C-alpha cells in the first residue's frame, strides 16, 4: 500500500519566500489597498489617528456590553459611576513578532496535501512579514532578530532564517513586550495544556497572539486502515495498531478536542486562532490573520473560520 503521509525535506527559504511574495502579492494586497483608501483622509505613513492596536492612549469610552472585561480600565472607571474602556491609538510602527514552528513534525505532508506543514507555515509567516513590512510595521522573529522596520522585511527575515543553523523548538518569548503582536504558525500537536502553559505568560503580559494551526488533512481525517505502524517524526516513537480504521473515530474526537480546547482558551483571552489546512489555500489564513490584526479587540473574533 502506498504510504499516506511522509516527512519531506525542509523547504528552501528562498523558494518559500517566492511563494510567500506571490501570496502576499495576490490576495492581501487588495486589503491593504482598501485600507489605504480609507485612511487617506487621516494621512501619513505613521499617522493613523484612530483607535486600534497600539501602545499609546487614545481615548476612554464607555464599556459596551459584550466587550472583554479584561479591557476595562478600572482606574478610570473608579472615578465615577460608569465603566470605561481605554482605547489605544493605532500605532503606526507596531511590533509584530512572527514565528513558524521549525519542529520535525512540521515536515509532514500527506498525499492529499499540496505542501508540507512547514512550507505552509513559512509561506504564511513570510507573507505576513511582507505585508507588514509594506505597511511599515516592525517585524521580528523571536530568538533570531530584534524588531526592525524595512521595506524588504520578508526578504531580510528569510535571509536570517536561511542563515540560522538551528532553531530551538520553543523560542524565547521573554523579550516580547506588551502591546506587541505575536503570530505563531505551528501544528500545536502538543497537548493543549502544555501549549497553554507555554503561552499563558504572554497573555499576562498583554501580548496579543495570533495562533495559526497548520493542519494536514491526513492528521484530521485519519484515512488510515489496516495494520499500521505509526511513527512520530519528532520523538521517533512507534505505535502499531491492528486495524487503524477502528480507532479513527476516537482519534478524530481526540484531535478536535485539542483544537477546541485551544480555541476556547484563545477566545477567552481574546486571541485569535486560525486553522489552515495544507490542502486549502494559504491565502485564506493570510486574509483572516490580517483581518484579525487590523480588527478591534472584541469577543467573537477568535475562533475557527
Amino acid at each position, binding site marked *: *500500500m502506498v*504510504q*499516506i*503521509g*511522509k*516527512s519531506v525535506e525542509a523547504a528552501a527559504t528562498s523558494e518559500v519566500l517566492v511563494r510567500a511574495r506571490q501570496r502576499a502579492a495576490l490576495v492581501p494586497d487588495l486589503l491593504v489597498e482598501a485600507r489605504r483608501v480609507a485612511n487617506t483622509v487621516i494621512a501619513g505613513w505613521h499617522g493613523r489617528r484612530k483607535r486600534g492596536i497600539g501602545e499609546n492612549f487614545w481615548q476612554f469610552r464607555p464599556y459596551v456590553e459584550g466587550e472583554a472585561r479584561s479591557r476595562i480600565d478600572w482606574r478610570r472607571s473608579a472615578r465615577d459611576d460608569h465603566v470605561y474602556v481605554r482605547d489605544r491609538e493605532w500605532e503606526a510602527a507596531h511590533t509584530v513578532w512572527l514565528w513558524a514552528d521549525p519542529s520535525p*513534525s*512540521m515536515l*509532514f505532508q500527506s498525499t492529499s496535501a499540496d505542501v508540507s506543514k512547514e512550507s505552509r507555515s513559512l509561506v504564511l509567516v513570510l507573507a505576513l512579514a511582507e505585508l507588514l513590512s509594506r505597511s511599515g510595521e516592525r517585524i521580528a522573529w523571536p530568538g533570531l532578530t530584534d524588531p526592525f522596520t524595512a521595506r524588504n522585511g520578508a526578504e531580510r527575515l528569510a535571509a536570517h532564517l536561511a542563515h540560522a543553523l538551528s532553531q530551538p523548538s520553543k523560542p524565547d518569548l521573554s523579550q516580547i513586550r506588551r502591546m506587541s503582536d505575536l503570530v505563531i504558525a505551528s*501544528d500545536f*500537536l*502538543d*497537548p493543549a495544556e502544555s501549549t497553554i502553559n507555554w503561552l499563558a505568560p504572554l497573555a499576562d503580559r498583554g501580548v496579543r497572539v495570533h495562533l495559526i494551526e497548520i493542519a*494536514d488533512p491526513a*492528521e484530521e481525517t485519519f*484515512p*488510515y*486502515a*489496516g*495494520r*499500521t*505502524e*505509526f*511513527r*512520530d*517524526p*519528532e*520523538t521517533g*516513537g512507534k*505505535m*502499531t*495498531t*491492528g*486495524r*487503524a*480504521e*477502528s*480507532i*479513527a473515530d*476516537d*482519534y478524530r474526537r*481526540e*484531535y478536535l478536542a*485539542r483544537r477546541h480546547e485551544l480555541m476556547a482558551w484563545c477566545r477567552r483571552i481574546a486571541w485569535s486562532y486560525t486553522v489552515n489546512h495544507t490542502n486549502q489555500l494559504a491565502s485564506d489564513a493570510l486574509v483572516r490573520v490580517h483581518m484579525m490584526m487590523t480588527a478591534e479587540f472584541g469577543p467573537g473574533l477568535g475562533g475557527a473560520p
Partner: protein
Amino acid sequence: MSFLSLAFAQPLILYGLLALPVIWWLLRLTPPRPQIEVFPPLQILARVLKPEETPHKSPWWLTLLRLTLAALVILALADPVFRPAKNVGSGGSVLALIIDNSWPAAREWDKRQATAERLINDAGDSGIPVILALTTDAENVEIGPFAAEAARDRLRAAMPRPVPADRHMTYAKIVDAIDGLSDTTLALLTDGLAGPDDEGAFAQLLASNIGRIVWAAPRSLDTIGLTSADNQPKAMIVKAIRPTSDTPPRQFTVHALDDKGRRIGEATGLFGAGVSETTAELKVPFELRNDFDSIVVEGENLASAVHLLDENSRRRRVGLISASEADQSQPLLSPLYYIRNALLPFADLIEAETSDLAKAVPELIDDKPAIVVMADVGTLPQEARTKLIDWIESGGTLIRFAGPRLAAAENDDDLLPVRLRLGERALGGTLSWTEPQPVAEFPAQGPFFDLAAPRDVVVRRQVLAEPTPDIVERTWASLADGTPLVTGAKRGEGTLVLFHVPPEATWSNLPITGSFVEMLHRVVQFSRNQGRLEQSADGKPATLAPYRMISADGALIPPPPDARPLVLGSEIPPVTITNPPGFYGGGEGVVAHNLLDASARFEPIARPGTNVPITEIRYAFDEQRDLKGWLIALAILLLALDSLAVFWLGGVFAWRSAAKAGRASATVAAMVALGAGLYVIPALAQNTDAKPGDAEAIEAISLTRIAYVLTGDSAVDSISRAGISGLNRFLIEKTALEPGEPAGVDIAVDELSFYPLIYWPVDPAAPMPSAAAIARVDAYMQQGGTVLFDTRDQYANGFGALGASPATLRLREILASLNVPPLEPVPPDHVLTKSFYILRQFPGRYADAPLWVEASLDAENSENRPVRTGDGVSSIMITAADFAGAWAIDQSGRPMLPTVPGNPLQRVYAYRSGVNIMMYMLTGNYKSDQVHLPILLERLGQ
C-alpha cells in the same frame, strides 16, 4: 500403522507433527508486517490507542489457522487411508478367481464385482497373474492367466446370467489352468446355492495344488423361487420354494402379468417357520387366468422369481372326431360345424386326417390335446377305446354329443358320465302331449353355475339318462322338467362331458345360441393339455427360436447373442447359457422355458472341508478411501482463508472514503451491467430477426442516395464521389430533393436495389466485372433501377467502327452480357428534357455528347403534345460527356475540373442535366402526364 480405522502409507512423515510447536513459536513471533506511516499527532493517537490493541503478535486464531494448515499438510503427506481393506488376494504365484455369475448373483452383483476387483487389485499390486473364471461361461471361454488390468477389464464386462452355476465344468478348467503352478491362491466367490455335484467339483479342485482359499458366500440367502404354476379350475396354484437355510416365517406376494407386462392378478403366500416350500393361490376369473403371461414374486428381481406360462398352460388343443363327416358340400349340416366355430377363437383345433376311427383316435391323442370332442359317435374300435380311456384317466377331457348313433349304441360306462336309456325322447310333435322344453337354471354345483341360462333355447329331442342316485350331482345343465341336458363326471384325472343333444340345430337350437359357445368355453377352461408338442410336422425335433428371455434380475429382455434355439425332445433341455430361461417360439405361439422345474430345491452351498487354510471374506464395496486429496483440498481452503484474513488485517477490505465506495459500487454496477448486457444481447439477437448488414441497409434506404460504381481506380472513384456530391449540393439548393451521401458500390458484392440511380464511369483500365456481377446489374435494371454509363470519351473517339476508344470498347463488352433494350439519343420531346429544367442537350464536362436512353419507339407523338407519352423509366442511360467531371466540386465547393470547352454555362447545364436525370429517376413520366394539366383543370372547372 492403523488406528481409528485410519492407516498411513508413510507413517514416518507423521513425525513432522513434532515440528508444530516450532511452527507455532515462529508464527507467534512473526506478526504480519504493518504499513509504516509517519504520523506527527502520535501523542493524540497514543491516548486513543489502548495497549491491548497494539498486537505485537499474530492474533491467536490466525496462528491456529496456520497451525491447522501445517498439520493438514503433514497428515496429507503421510498418505492417510480411511478404513483400509485387508489384503487377501496377494499371495502365492497366481490368483485363481472363480466367480459365480449365476442367477442368485444378480442380487448385489456390483458388490460381488467390487469384491472381485479388490482381489484383482491386490494381486496386481503384488504383481501376480490372475485366472478369472465365471461359472456360467461356456466351456471354450478363456480363463487366463491374465495380467491384473486385463482381468479387471474382463471382470467389468461380466454380467450375472439367468442360469445355474456349472461348477463342475469350471473347476475342471481351473484345475487344467493351474496345473504345474505352485502355491495357487484360490478365490471362490460363490452365489451361495448348492449345485447338483458340488462335492465332486470341490474334490477335483482340492486335489490340485492349492496354497490357500479365499471363500466368499452371501451373508444371507433369502431367494424365493417359483417352481410351477398349476391352473386349477378355481385358482392358479403357484408353488414357491426358498432356501432351506432361510427359516423365519416370511410372507411374499406374487402377481401375474399379461403379455404387455400389466399386472392382472395378485396373491400372497406364506412360508411358515422352517418351511421352505409353499403355495400361493391366484384366485382370478378364468378369462383373466388365460391371459397370464408370467408370474412374478414381488420385489425379488431375480430370474428364479419369474415363472413363465406358455400356450401349454393356456391355449388348449381340441381334437374333433365325428363319424358322419360325409357331406362336405353342406357344411351347415355337418355335426362339427358349430363346434368348430365355437371353439376356434380360444382353442387349437385338431382334426383327424382319416375318418377311420381306429386310426383317427390314436392320431389325435398323440397330439396330446386337452379335449377330444366326439360328435355323435356311437361305438369305438377296441384299440382306440382303450387309448382314449387311458388318456382320460391321465387328465384328458372328453366331450361327447348325442345323436342318432349314440342313441342307438350300447351303454358305455367308461366313456359316458351317465347311463343312457336306449333311444331318444321327442318332446312335442304330433304324437306327443309334451311341449318342447326350455333350459332350466344351471345347477349350482356344476361348472356353468355362473352362466345365465338361455331362455330362448328349446329342446325338442334328447337322449335320456337313466335315473341313478348320483344323477343330480352329475347334471351340469337340465331342462325345465328336470331331465339332464348336460352331464359330466370325473374319470381319474380327466373329465367326461355329455351333451344330450347333437351339436347341430336339428334336435334343439342350443348349438346356434351364444350359450353353447360359453358352455364349451367353460369346459375348455377346465381342461388341461396333456403334454407338449415334441415334433414338428416333418418329424424332426421341433426347434424354437429364442423370443423373449428372462435376465438374471428377472426382467424380460430380447434374446442375448449367445442364446440358441430350443430343441424340443422327449425331455426338457436343461437351462444353460445357450438355452437361457425365457419364451421360445414366435408371435404365434411360444413355449416357456423356466429356470426352475417343479422339483427344484434351494440348498445353501457347503464349504468344502479341507486342511488348506481358508480365509472368509464378505461381499462388500471397497470402503477404502484415500484421504490425501481431501486433506490437501482442505489445506488449500485454509490457505485461502488465511490470505483473506491477512488482507483483512491489512485493511484491504476497508473502503473508508465515500468516493472509494462510490467508485467500487460503480465498478460493481458496471460489471453487473456488462454481465447483464452480455446475457441480454444474445437474447435480443435471438428474439429479433436481425441479420448482418441490417444497419447498412437501413442507412442506405433512410435517405435517397445516388450510387456510383467503384472502379478500383482511386482517381476515377474520387471524381465520381466528388461529382455526385456536387450534384447533391445542386439538388439541395434547387430542388426539394435532399439526397444523402454518395454511395460507392461494388457491383459484385453490395446490394444494389437501395439506389435509384447508379453512376458507372466506365474505366477501361479496371478489370472487366465478373459475369456474376454483370448478372447482378442486369437484375438491378430489370427490377427498376437505372444505370448511367459514362464513358467520358467524347473527344477520344475516332471515326468509324475502328475508332472506338477503349472505354467504349469496354462498355460494349459490358453491354454484351446485359439485356439492353433498343437505345436512342434523347429525343427533343422526351420527358428527360422537361423533368425539371427545360433542356435541349445534356452536356457534361464535354459538350455535344448525346445522352442515350431506352428507345420509346412505339410512343405516339401527336403534334400538339410537348412531351411524348411513355411509361416507365429508362433502365439505362449512356453518355460520353463525363457528368461526374463536370459536377465534381472540392471541399470548398469549387469545381475541380474544367469544362471542355471552357464555357461556364456548360457546367450549369451539366448540373441541370443531372437534376433532370435525377428527377426523371424519381418521378418517372409524371411530367409527361403534367401536360394534360390544363385540360384536366378545364374539365374540373366544368
